[in-house]
């Protein structure tokens, strides 16, 4: 049964439904960082701090606007849909048409069409949809009974099902949902589109789409970006190219904001690729070293490989939905089944490939850890709120397409490709995080793993959970990255876990905030990650993936706890092991110049293995005894030096001498306020962000996640389950407990040195160290193969076969002409053929004066031959007909 809510058509918007000022001017939010980009690029060098404060200010304004937008959204009129009615809903309210004239692009289209659109989109619903109007709300709701959607009849249990009652907005919307009453409030989206260009009969629009999903994303992105800007003012204070850096940050943010607020797939692609460009610039920020530019290229290529899917997928949807890029229309048609299912499946698979590339899912995740070559705040931005979550956002935005294509809610197979890839990613990335010595790489793999959760969440139908996790993850992952930045700032720009230790005494603010972030990432109760991860697991549990992806999620939680315990232990407990003075680091970096890229790590791991000491890393890791560890580490130090990425940039390289003017005499130290304030703010958010959707707090997040296409598609919304929460917490605690026992308590369970004693364990360890050999496959086999033999063969074909044919033809023509002259011309007194031959010879002679060499002559005869051939063709042409 499909119930259609519709309001009376009305010119003026009813009270509470009109779009607020910020909603109508949402384009201001992406525009601000664009201005920041342009101004910083043009005038930044002359500005204070290389233009940094300009970006900070504008991002601050953008943050305020996005927060205001959030408030406006909550105050927006909504349709209250209460539990108890056995019907799905196709809420067809539309934003008001007012205010679009203020849009910067002159011509506003679409408003008229929008009002008529649902009429066509729900087959057979009779009159119900015909008379709803732009932002109506006069209380007229009509029920239409449509029995033609059998899947809808079998709505999964637990789904809050709406009535057709339309309630006018209440000022405090939260009240309705409180007390465990699962009412779904659907707020109408607001969309304003202006003509961009047209081809044939199709007008392609440029516009903005405001709904809860967009609002929450805009806020998150602005929030993180503002803090990253602020953090960077200190972190990159002395960087030679800070102006470029801040300009790139601005454009990067603009790309993401544009993407999340766009109303069309084409614009989404625009924002998507702008981020690709900016990640290239930021990862390769210190491009003097080939390691960094390699990482930048790798990121660009890998995501670009996935982008093939986006190009193809968008094309399929464009034609499938009747030649439109409009996201709302595409989603609506996916729900109503107007797009054939085979097309939906093809589009979904293609789009998901794009998500795999951009959101670093297995098997295209390999670029993300390498992307750590960029400055740390940029990593925070890339990992927390932009770029890598773009893929998840895109799948979330097109969710009805995926939901219908893979029959996510009632899938007989018990799995689908999205959930599968997400689940695999959780585990493989979680395992890889264990063998990293670079704190940023641990965090990078944890990002990959957490993105796996989001993707898996989308795969099992936990839309709200996935989006909520995207939201909470942004805060605690930004916190962890910036915390790592702060640690590195204190430790001579090293990121090597072996250089840290005991830092809790030296940098208490960083320590406390980092611990909060860690707890949130682990998903410990109360902290943000708990609530969002729980919702994903809940979705897996209640949507029929209990025995598969639910378990994967729990194992992933245990892994997360374990590797984060390792990081925390190595960083904050024990004794500080890094260099104490700048001299030490200078010395070390001279001794082992440039020994810090991925290949060298591998080489490093191999070299000691030959002398039977392959366990030095393992030993260092495995040993709870600080002395043993220090000793093992010392050996390593003498070989590789205690520096990491940015240590080798110390002095003259980029002019970002990290501590040239630091007041601290070489000991690790707490960072100054532009670094610690963002950490504290994010730490607060790492708690608060989760609680907003806690059941006892009234599931406030659903005000943003309950958006029209999701509700209309019938995406299930299971209610909180204590069982699931307990099981997942136990899973997490088991990982935490084991890791605690191993690192803190020194319990070894007889496993110490297992990788040496047991061949299988050793091979497993090597497999992880080699990152499942995926990099080897991509870089050494595929890329090198195409660059080398394949391209070489193509070029050889060009030079020898194609040109060979040309030269051969020329030679033949010359021989023919000679024959013509010697034999025919001398013996036959006929003119035609003779003329051609002589002409060709003459032409050849003519060119001989201008150009010497045999090849030229051959070519000269080519024309003679061609002309003769052409005459023959012409004669044939003429005789026919």
């Amino acid at each position: 049964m499909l119930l259609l809510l519709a309001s009376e058509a009305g010119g003026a918007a009813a009270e509470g439904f009109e779009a607020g000022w910020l909603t109508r001017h949402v384009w201001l939010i992406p525009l601000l960082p664009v201005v920041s980009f342009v101004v910083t690029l043009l005038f930044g060098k002359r500005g204070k701090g290389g233009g940094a404060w300009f970006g900070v200010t504008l991002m601050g304004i953008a943050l305020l606007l996005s927060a205001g937008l959030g408030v406006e959204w909550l105050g927006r009129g909504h349709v209250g849909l209460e539990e108890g009615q056995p019907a799905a809903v196709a809420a067809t309210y539309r934003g008001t048409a007012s205010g679009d004239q203020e849009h910067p692009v002159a011509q506003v289209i679409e408003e008229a069409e929008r009002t008529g659109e649902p009429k066509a989109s729900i087959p057979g619903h009779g009159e119900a949809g015909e008379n709803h109007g732009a932002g109506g709300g006069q209380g007229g709701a009509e029920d239409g009974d449509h029995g033609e959607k059998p899947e809808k009849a079998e709505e999964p249990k637990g789904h809050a099902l709406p009535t057709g009652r339309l309630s006018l907005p209440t000022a405090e919307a939260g009240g309705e949902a409180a007390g465990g009453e699962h009412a779904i409030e659907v707020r109408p989206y607001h969309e304003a589109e202006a003509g961009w260009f047209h081809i044939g009969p199709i007008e392609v629009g440029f516009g903005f789409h405001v709904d809860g999903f967009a609002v929450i994303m805009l806020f998150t992105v602005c929030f993180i970006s503002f803090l990253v800007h602020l953090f960077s003012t200190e972190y990159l204070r002395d960087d030679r190219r800070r102006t470029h850096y801040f300009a790139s940050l601005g454009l990067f943010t603009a790309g993401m904001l544009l993407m999340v607020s766009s109303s069309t797939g084409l614009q989404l692609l625009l924002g998507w690729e702008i981020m690709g460009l900016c990640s290239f610039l930021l990862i390769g920020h210190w491009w003097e070293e080939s390691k960094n530019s390699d990482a930048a290229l790798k990121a660009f290529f890998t995501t670009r490989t996935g982008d093939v899917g986006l190009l193809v997928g968008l094309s399929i949807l464009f034609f499938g939905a009747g030649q439109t890029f409009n996201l709302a229309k595409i989603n609506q048609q996916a729900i109503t089944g107007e797009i054939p299912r085979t097309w939906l499946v093809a589009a979904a698979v293609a789009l998901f490939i794009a998500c795999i590339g951009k959101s670093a899912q297995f098997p295209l995740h390999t670029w993300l850890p390498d992307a750590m070559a960029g400055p740390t705040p940029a990593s925070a931005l890339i990992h927390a709120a932009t770029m890598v979550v773009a893929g998840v956002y895109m799948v979330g935005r097109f969710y009805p397409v995926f939901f219908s294509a893979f029959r996510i809610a009632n899938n007989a197979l018990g799995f689908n490709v999205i959930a599968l890839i997400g689940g695999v990613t959780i585990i493989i990335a979680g395992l890889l995080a264990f063998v990293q010595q670079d704190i940023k790489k641990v965090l990078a793999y944890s990002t990959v793993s957490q993105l796996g959760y989001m993707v898996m969440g989308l795969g099992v139908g936990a839309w709200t959970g996935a989006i909520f996790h995207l939201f909470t993850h942004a805060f605690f992952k930004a916190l962890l990255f910036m915390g790592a930045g702060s640690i590195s700032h204190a430790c001579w720009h090293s990121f090597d876990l072996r250089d840290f230790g005991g830092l809790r005494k030296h940098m208490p603010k960083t320590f406390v905030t980092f611990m909060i972030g860690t707890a949130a990432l682990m998903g410990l109760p109360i902290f943000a990650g708990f609530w969002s991860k729980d919702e994903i697991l809940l979705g897996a549990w209640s949507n029929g993936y209990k025995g598969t992806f639910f378990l994967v999620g729990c194992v992933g939680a245990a892994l997360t706890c374990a590797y984060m315990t390792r990081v925390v232990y190595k960083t904050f407990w024990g004794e500080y092991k890094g260099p104490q003075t700048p001299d030490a680091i200078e010395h070390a970096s001279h001794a082992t110049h440039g020994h810090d890229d991925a290949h060298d790590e591998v080489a490093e791991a191999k070299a000691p293995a030959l002398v039977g000491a392959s366990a030095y890393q393992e030993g260092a890791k495995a040993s709870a005894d600080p002395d043993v560890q220090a000793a093992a580490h010392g050996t390593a130090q003498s070989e590789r030096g205690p520096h990491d990425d940015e240590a080798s940039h110390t002095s003259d390289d980029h002019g970002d001498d990290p501590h040239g003017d630091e007041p601290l005499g070489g000991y690790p130290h707490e960072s100054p306020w532009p670094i610690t304030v963002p950490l504290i703010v994010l730490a607060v958010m790492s708690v608060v962000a989760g609680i907003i959707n806690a059941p006892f707090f009234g599931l406030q997040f659903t005000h943003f996640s309950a958006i029209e296409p999701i509700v209309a598609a019938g995406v299930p919304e299971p209610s909180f389950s204590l069982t699931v929460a307990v099981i997942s917490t136990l899973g997490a605690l088991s990982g935490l407990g084991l890791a605690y026992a191993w690192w803190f308590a020194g319990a070894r369970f007889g496993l110490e040195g297992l990788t040496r004693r047991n061949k299988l364990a050793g091979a497993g360890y090597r497999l992880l160290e080699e990152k499942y050999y995926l990099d080897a496959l991509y870089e050494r086999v595929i890329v090198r193969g195409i660059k080398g033999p394949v391209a070489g063969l193509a070029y050889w074909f060009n030079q020898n076969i194609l040109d060979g044919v040309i030269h051969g033809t020329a030679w033949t023509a010359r021989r023919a002409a000679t024959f013509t002259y010697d034999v025919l011309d001398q013996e036959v007194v006929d003119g035609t053929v003779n003329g051609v031959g002589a002409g060709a010879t003459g032409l050849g002679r003519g060119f001989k004066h201008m150009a010497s060499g045999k090849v030229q002559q051959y070519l000269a005869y080519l024309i003679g031959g061609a002309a003769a051939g052409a005459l023959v063709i012409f004669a044939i042409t003429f005789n026919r007909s």
Partner: protein
Amino acid sequence: MAIIDGNVNLDNAVLSVATFAPLAGAAVLGLLPKREEFLVKAWALGTSVFTLLCGLYLVLRFNYADAGAPQFERSHTWIDVINSNYHVFMDGLSLPLFLLSMVITTLCIVYSWDHWPEPRNPKAFLMLMLILETGMLGSFVAEDLILFFVFFELVLLPMYFMIGVWGGEHRQYASLKFFLFTLFGSALMILSFLALYFKSGAGGLDPTFDIPMLIERGMSGTLVRSTELLIFGGLFMGFAIKVPMFPFHTWLPDAHTQAPTVGSVILAAVLLKLGTYGFIRIAIPILPSAAREYAPIIAVLATIGIIYGALGCLAQTDMKRLIAFSSVAHMGFVMLGIATLTDYGINAAVFGMVAHGLITGMLFFVAGSVKDRFHTLEIKRLGGLLVQAPKLGWILGFCSMASLGLPGLAGFWGEFPAILSTFNPAEGLSVTLFRTCMVIASIGTVLAAGYLLWLFQRTAFGTPKEEWATTEVHDVQRPEWLAWAPLLAGIVLFGILPGIVFDITDPAVTERVTAAVNARGK
């Protein structure tokens, strides 16, 4: 049926003046003394600026509401005995390319101001450039096959001499190869023109070379299938060599590599478009049925060209040769769009022509400037351009990004709509084949990112090679800025507001090209 003369007014007079002003300027240039170098340069620049102003006048006077209709039309008896007329007009298809030719020529003269390739001789060089300009402009407005042919061939000789005299080490081989290849195509093309002429006389009508009249007469409806295919084949060869399409492209890398900088720029920016323009203006609308039969072949060759061109790029060790090969790939996208015979595809193709003109033109400019500074374009000897000449380096990066089809820059709008249109080709074409081409062409975008960013990484990132470590390298200079700024601005402007081009081309495409395809396609 003779076309009636008359209707001379200011507007259509300006169209003719704009077309022939460079030729007249070149004639006057010939009379100026060679020693007065400044005078020579100033005169040439003045001529091209005057031409450009005429062009801008036309752009202002152009009726955009009716961009598909012939405007500034002028017809005058020319060679009465074969009923060939001087028939010119401008519509939405010609306007972007007409203007592009003017802008590129002017900017090339500005760039050349103190960058003369050996053996210098600015006077001769500039004369050739101006003659070339008339050839290009005329080709884009000619509406008579013979007239078109004359302009089309007029382009050939100046470029031949430009490469043959001012080119690099292997200039003679390259110039002759260019000349003969194109002439070979032209020979077949003129035969097809003649065949069209004679066949158009069927049913007691006067035979004609007039393009709109040939379209109107619906040649596809009156010709025997095999004859039509042969005629189209002749046109195909003539245009495909000029584009150039795989496998007729081998003249291009040689010509580009050897040509002087501005020669390469003009070659890439304008001359290649004569081929694609010929398809859209002549071959497809006159013979739509044959176009339908050739479309799968064109699509397959275009797709091969996209991948093959990209692979060719990856194998290069010379920067300029790499850029040259990239043209094969990019023109592949243009031809793929054309092969779909749809509004989307052909609009994308026209956009792709303009975008490729701006972007690849810029890339050749940058390559020329790199060569000026380092006297080599061998990629492995270069590096750290961003350290020594940061502005030049970033311009290279910008153009690379534009060339690989980054949305927001012009290149994207030639590429993505072409891919999009390939999903849904004109009715009757094999959907399976075209969709396969679409996926392969999309993979071409990844390879494009590969060769362009590798080029950028190897030349601009890193630190300068020892060889140049102590060399004083000057960054972008004033003539370079003056020549490049309009192109760079255009790349951004068209990238953000693609409607500027699409809104002009679309009516012309629907009215003049796809209308014929839809009407007589079967």
